[in-house]
């Protein structure tokens, strides 16, 4: 079975996006739909061209080639987790957890340091960076920072 390449998949996704975009403009007045609908149509035509091109000229290269997928997935999940943590615990706590965890995780392969040193460094950097910038923004620039549902 021939493998479907990523270009074909993305072109199909784009066709769906374009159709959705056009569909969503129904019920709007002329002044509101004229622009998005036109762009939606152009996107649809381009996506179809992209689909045809991907069928004719199937490239052999694969998406995410030569990339440490595990690390990328963990980083992505951590960032999503960070956002959820902010909504629960507020900005300062979530940032300490996130920076601490990421710093520790990214040092995993560093063999020069003992495990204890890694944890200590990660904790120190997470707490000092978070608190420094929290104080700077909250009290010097008076910029509001996100507060959590549980406590802020």
């Amino acid at each position, binding site marked *: 079975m021939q493998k479907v390449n990523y270009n074909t998949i993305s072109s199909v996704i784009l066709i769906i996006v374009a159709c959705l975009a056009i569909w969503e403009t129904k019920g709007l007045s002329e002044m509101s739909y004229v622009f998005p609908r036109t762009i939606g149509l152009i996107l649809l035509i381009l996506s179809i061209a992209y689909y045809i091109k991907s069928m004719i000229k199937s490239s052999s290269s694969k998406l995410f080639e030569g990339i440490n997928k595990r690390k990328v997935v963990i980083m992505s999940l951590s960032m999503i987790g960070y956002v959820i943590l902010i909504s629960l*615990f507020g900005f300062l*706590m979530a940032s*300490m*957890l996130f920076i601490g965890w990421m710093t520790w995780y990214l040092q995993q392969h560093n063999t020069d340091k003992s*495990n204890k040193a890694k*944890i200590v460094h990660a*904790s120190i950097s997470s707490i000092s960076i978070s608190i420094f910038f929290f104080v700077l923004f909250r009290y010097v620039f*008076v910029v*509001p920072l996100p507060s959590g549902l*549980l*406590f*802020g």
Partner: protein
Amino acid sequence: MKRKFLILFSTACVLFILPACGANADGSESTENYPSESITYSIPFDPGGQSDVEARRQQPYLEESLDQDVVMQYKPGGGGSVGWSELINKDPDGHFISGINIPHIILQPLANDDTGYQTEDIVPVAIFQATPIGIAVSKDSDIESLEDLVKKAKESPGSITAAGSGTYSGHHIALLQLQDLAGIEMQYVPFDGAAPSIQAFLGGNAEVIFGNSSDLIKYQDDMKILAIGSEETFKPLPDVPTFKELGYDMTAGIDRGVAVPPETSQEIIETLEKAFLDILDEDGVEDDMYDEGFEPKRMGHEESLEYIEQKQSEYSKILENVEEN
């Protein structure tokens, strides 16, 4: 190793939760010693705008009379709707107040279903200032009076272009009201704010402009102001007739006030109402307002509620008419 982490964090969590709970218990105690902490005054527009100018004028007086810090917060977006959606979800303890604009808070929920608040959710404390909306033409125009304009519009319906700021905004509704009362039809061209609409008008892209009094005063040498939407003759523009004087039973303007979240207690509302309305009695405040092209207003909580209700029924009728056509 991971356990150590967990222990550390759970300890940290407890340390943070405890004071937070304590603070909550204090906050909901009573309204007697209101205000017990600093008050956030939210402006749902950009800093430096007209709402901000007014709020900044009030800030020192409020800090003195309420004996607490008043912290300004800006939350622009969606013509104010983002800020007002935030307001109605805040704790009704009087420590978060927000500037409101009429007709914005009436028209936005009427125009779109997903605005994020309903007009009824917003509890007005006071309305203290207004910018009447006026109608003007270029100084080179052959139109000399509102009568000329109506006559010209009747001769060729839909061919006169009128610039204003925004759709379903104060300017738009003023145009719709005038069209309704005069039985005319003009082409409304909405711009992205007052400044771009004035730029377009000065550049000759539109024949007529609906503008805020403060802007009209600023550019009065470049235009002929035909009428103004204030209740009585507008002091800074003594020669300009009001719509009412010209026989069109309408007022047009943007009223500015302050509001609190729903279910705020009556005592808090009264405290704030007094604090805001007293500012108007301070020396020089009214004169400054006139100088900047504003009109001072004095409406308390009850009066503002009635006013908003009356405007709401007026506007929903106009919008229904538009949708039918």
